[in-house]
């Protein structure tokens, strides 16, 4: 029998949460380590899931509730794993926890944010708006405890938040902590990052205001996003009536990501429905190499295609410039089926940027090999360590959840051997 029956989950996104609650409900103690102050990962940033078009809180909320109800899940927020030693059944894990500067007495009253004089780019909204250095990402964040970003906070010299807090919840003296835990198994679920658009020099390299990424589009359309859910273009707040979607913006491209990112076609089709619902006279033009809607997603593709204001044009957009007078992005592509080069202005352009495994930039301190793109090669993981979802290959939420459930069983086996 393993000396230690606990399971460590690295990453508190949908995969990590699923793996954690499934493992805990089967009777093992679980520790979650999450890098940010809040759970939910990329899914929290979405407006809707495909193909059912329901909001991400259905699903997330259930998992949050399961964590709250289960006495077997503990978690470290704003934490990262620094060191792992030992073997299956008995790992010693060193975790570095950054100070949140807000304790559990927080009731989420927003007084600290109101008092805070410092503004910073809102990373949760991909920099499309500003937030205070004392902040919470959105009104359904979990845990519902504010956090203070010390890259921007002026500390005790300012102290306005602490003065404003009636609950004694702010502690600007908090220090980083190092925690050591012993676990029998480790689940890696640190997820993915959107591809860096500054590398796409022919698509504006992030310098054209009205060219946004698909993840930014999710935030724009989300009720808890920077515009309260109204799709408005960044340069002037105008309602965009024509949007071009650039499929494979970096994906399936050996100069960038030499793989299909799996979700982008469905994401763009989904986002076309966001636009069409908000503005009945709008048009969505999806420029593609191949539309890839695997399995039963094909039906979603058919459904969106029925809308006469959604056009699908075969031909990759390979150049975007900006009309300086209007701020309209001008796209260039060949309409392959017509054999004609198109140069056309749109109100806004959405780049269907792909998925990069988080392990491409930050490696996990366990023994493992990676593909050249940074994906975990599962067969090379040491015994007792398992990787989930987008760490291994680009997948959608549904497949991540299935994978996480499977991995929960594996980790339980590891701690019971």
């Amino acid at each position: 029998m393993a000396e230690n029956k606990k399971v460590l989950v690295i990453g508190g996104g949908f995969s990590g949460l699923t793996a954690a609650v499934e493992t805990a409900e089967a009777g093992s103690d679980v520790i979650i380590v999450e890098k940010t102050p809040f759970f939910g990962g990329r899914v929290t940033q979405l407006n809707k899931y495909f193909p059912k078009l329901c909001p991400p809180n259905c699903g997330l909320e259930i998992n949050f509730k399961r964590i709250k109800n289960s006495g077997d899940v503990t978690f470290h927020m704003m934490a990262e794993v620094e060191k792992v030693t030992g073997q299956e059944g008995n790992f010693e894990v060193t975790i570095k926890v950054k100070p949140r500067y807000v304790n559990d007495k927080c009731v989420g009253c927003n007084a600290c944010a109101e008092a805070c004089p410092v503004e910073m780019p809102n990373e949760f909204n991909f920099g499309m708006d500003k937030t205070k250095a004392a902040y919470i990402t959105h009104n359904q964040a979990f845990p519902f405890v504010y956090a203070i970003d010390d890259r921007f906070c002026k500390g005790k010299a300012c102290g306005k938040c602490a003065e404003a807090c009636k609950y004694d919840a702010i502690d600007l003296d908090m220090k980083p902590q190092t925690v050591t835990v012993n676990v029998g198994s480790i689940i890696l679920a640190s997820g993915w990052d959107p591809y860096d658009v500054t590398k796409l020099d022919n698509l504006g390299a992030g310098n054209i205001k009205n060219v946004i990424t698909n993840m930014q589009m999710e935030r724009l359309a989300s009720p808890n996003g920077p515009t309260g859910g109204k799709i408005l273009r960044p340069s002037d707040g105008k309602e965009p009536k024509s949007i071009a979607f650039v499929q494979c913006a970096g994906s399936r491209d050996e100069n960038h990501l030499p793989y299909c990112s799996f979700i982008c076609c469905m994401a763009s089709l989904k986002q076309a429905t966001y636009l069409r619902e908000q503005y009945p006279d709008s048009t969505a033009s999806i420029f593609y190499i191949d539309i890839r809607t695997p399995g039963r997603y094909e039906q979603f593709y058919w459904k969106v295609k029925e809308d006469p204001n959604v056009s699908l044009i075969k031909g990759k957009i390979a150049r975007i410039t900006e009309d300086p007078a209007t701020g309209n992005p001008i796209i260039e592509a060949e309409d392959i089926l017509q054999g004609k080069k198109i140069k056309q202005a749109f109100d806004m352009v959405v780049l269907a940027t792909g998925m990069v495994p988080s392990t491409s930039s930050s490696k996990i301190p366990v023994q493992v090999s990676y593909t050249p793109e940074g994906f975990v090669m599962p067969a090379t993981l040491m015994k007792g360590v398992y990787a989930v979802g987008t760490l291994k290959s680009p997948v959608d939420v549904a497949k991540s959840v299935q994978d996480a459930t499977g991995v929960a069983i594996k980790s339980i086996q590891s701690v019971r051997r």
Partner: protein
Amino acid sequence: MTEQIKPDLNFINSVINAGGESLKKCYQCSTCTVVCNVTPDDKPFPRKEMVQAQWGMKDKLFGNPDIWLCHQCSDCTAYCPRGAKPGEVLGAIRKLSIEEFSVPGFLARMVNQPKFLLVLLAAPVLLYTLIIASQGFFTDGVPTENGKIVFGKFLFSLYYVDTVFTAAALFAVFSLYLGVTKYWRAMAAANGGVSSGDFGKALSDTFMDILGHNRFKKCEVTKDRATAHMLVFYSFIGLFITTILAFARVIPEYIHHLHLSEGIDVHMLDWLAYIYKPIGNVSAAALVLGIFLMMSNRFKNQGKAGLGSYYDWLFISLVAGVGISGLLAQFLRMANTVAAYPTYVAHLCLVFFLFAYAPFSKMAHMAYRTTALVYSRQTGRDTGN
């Protein structure tokens, strides 16, 4: 409209073997046509050429001016998401199209293959060995003029040089003429007849484009190529003028020698040397500099544009060889070293190679590309924008 396609497998393989190894990687996303600054918007290249080549549609490719509108900027190759290198594939197709149209075709096939290099080189080498042997230079030594090396003395005045090169040049011009007329007819056939456009204007617009290197200048990834090509291009013109004037200078000598006019002053046109020698030297220097830049550009851009094929490098090496051996022969002659003679003969052999095989080597691009550009101007395919 349906069209039955019968893939020409041999042709597909010949494109692959001619430097288009990456052909099959293309997945028709059309990034290439978008980043290309020299393609027309209607039926743009090179995506359509890539699919035509993948399907072995030889006639569509060869009866098409587009393969020559392409100046191999390699913007397409740099941005190609699949490493299919459209620039290199079109280069291979151009080579095959020269092979298709040039007369006699067997020479083109020889020029395209490294295994025939020595055979091709043997022709001028043997020719000059025979000439030199017939003059007795091998046994009696080389003549000098009061102890000074004079190339004119060496090869029996310049008769052997002039006759050999006049013959080689006439052959090349005639062969190129036959080749480009075949190409013109193929384009007309593929496009349903001869265009009624203004041929004279098409011709003059094309020459202005070429003189200004207007298309070259639209390249982005390999933008340095315009300068290098311009140096080589204008130095060829300079060397052509030099050759004409040098030939003119010895005309009185020919007249005298052939007893056409007994009293003629054979030195009456010697003053021409003051004109053509500076032109020749400056051109030779520009040629060597230009070709050196071309080589260094190719190495510099090989990651994005590819290094090029045997066909490209044969031509580059030949031009470099001609320039270097020419300058070297002159310096050695001025230094009054006997080594000047073999260097001069090597130079002549290289020039022969360049001239006589011009219709089949990459040198032929000047005729085929000009033809395609004129055709495109006349038919309105190319408006110069």
